[in-house]
């Protein structure tokens, strides 16, 4: 669950992968999670933070987390 080292992100959710030239937009929570990932937060820590701050059931978020990781993987942004 590590973001590739060279991925650039901005606070307003813009993502750029200099290796491929691909760019992406993300919603606020996606950008927030990316931020945590970039600063080296573990999966557990990040999930805990989101659950504390957002109105979401743990089960629901668990599913969405998996889905999000899939998106990042499909987008070639993860260090596998």
């Amino acid at each position, binding site marked *: 669950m590590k973001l590739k080292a060279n991925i650039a992100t901005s606070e307003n959710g813009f*993502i750029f992968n200099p*290796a*491929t*030239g*691909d*760019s*992406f*937009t*993300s*919603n*606020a*929570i*996606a950008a927030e*999670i990316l931020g945590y990932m970039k600063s080296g937060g573990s999966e557990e820590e990040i999930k805990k933070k989101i659950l*504390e*701050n*957002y*109105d*979401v059931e743990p089960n629901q*978020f668990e*599913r*969405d*987390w*998996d*889905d*999000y990781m899939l*998106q*990042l993987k*499909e*987008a*070639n942004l993860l260090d*596998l």
Partner: protein
Amino acid sequence: MKQKYERPTIRKMNTGLMNKFGTRTDFDPVETIDGVQVKSLVAEYGSPVFVLSEKQIRRNYQAAVRSFKTRYPKVQFAWSYKTNYLNAVCRVFHQEGSWAEVVSGFEYHKALGNGVAGNQIIFNGPDKKEADLTLAVENHSLIHIDHYDELYLLIDICKRINKTAKVAIRVNFDTGVYPIWDRFGFNYENGQAWAAINKIITAENLELVGLHCHIGTFMLSTAAYSVAATKLCDLAMRCKMELQNPVQYLDLGGGFPSTNTLKGAYLPGVDTVPSVEDFAEAITNTILNFGFAADELPLLILESGRVLIDDAGYLVGSVLANKRLSDGRRATILDFGINILFTSNWYDHKISVAKEAGQYTEETVLFGPLCMNIDVVRESITLPLLERGDQVVVHKVGAYNMTQWMQFINMRPAVVLIDMQGKSHQIRKPETLAYLEMMEEIPEYLK
């Protein structure tokens, strides 16, 4: 106060030059499916082998339901059996709360066998046998009438067994997408649908409970669904106002595309097809704004097939040989072809290597194992160098392949389901010679 939640998502922006020949991601190896090693799947179940992810099926289903239920109060999905009617697959959908949508007698019996209540089976299609219809009436199933001959047959059956059938009609119309699928059901524009509705209302033993359409498959236009919903709503409103027979449901059929890439498309499907959310928005907006009283909103039924299962299916196969064609092109022969990958007729399926490969890639044609010229899996694909025995993984093959596959030259392979815990289960055995010959008979004089 906690913040309002929205699920995290990213969207690719298309800038600069488009690249038809794939990005680096296409070459990333797929070594595991839902945590199970591709190598071990082949070792256990043989090659080729279809692999289905239960996790992804449930995820797709729940996401689709959520897209509609967050916009509309009454929603019901009915699993389109023909898309993939392996019992294990159907049961996953039924566990999630899906009804069954069937189009033949044997599909109908399969749904019963899978424990679906009679009144939660939707019976579609132009070919319903008399015995099947009779059973469907007795079980209070929802019978969607396709043509007048069926309408009259049904009236006869109901009279004979002195039972009332719950029916809907299938309606076809111009939605702005051509060709119109007007061979199914009754036409809206020429008044045929309205005439059929009137006939049903006056028939003693038929109860008109719904209206149905299925405007096409792999539909790329959400606007077409707005048009379809408008026309169904119009009929429903007239049923209520003019015939005092409000219908209980509108069934918008299936047709939402998966994220496969259609042959000849310039951009990959992932970047271009509308999402279920987009379709849900178009359909529910139309119905909500049509003018039904809040307590009279019809139940909205969806019969989605491919969008719910395509990306949960993989086909793992092996390289049989490499060749160089007369014109210098590279060719790779695989142990699967159009015999079991029917959808390679429609899609440029994404195909990955199953183990880490070098940086170097090449363009190749992928052929299947049949002795036929048309057995082409991909006309041109760029892949890392493949060698005999290497495995490849074809993506998004869950819809229609495990029902339209043919037993030609080769037998059909095993199908495996990976459960929520990452354990694999064989849900269909590989066919055997004994299985193939089971139905054959040899006349006495040839023995």
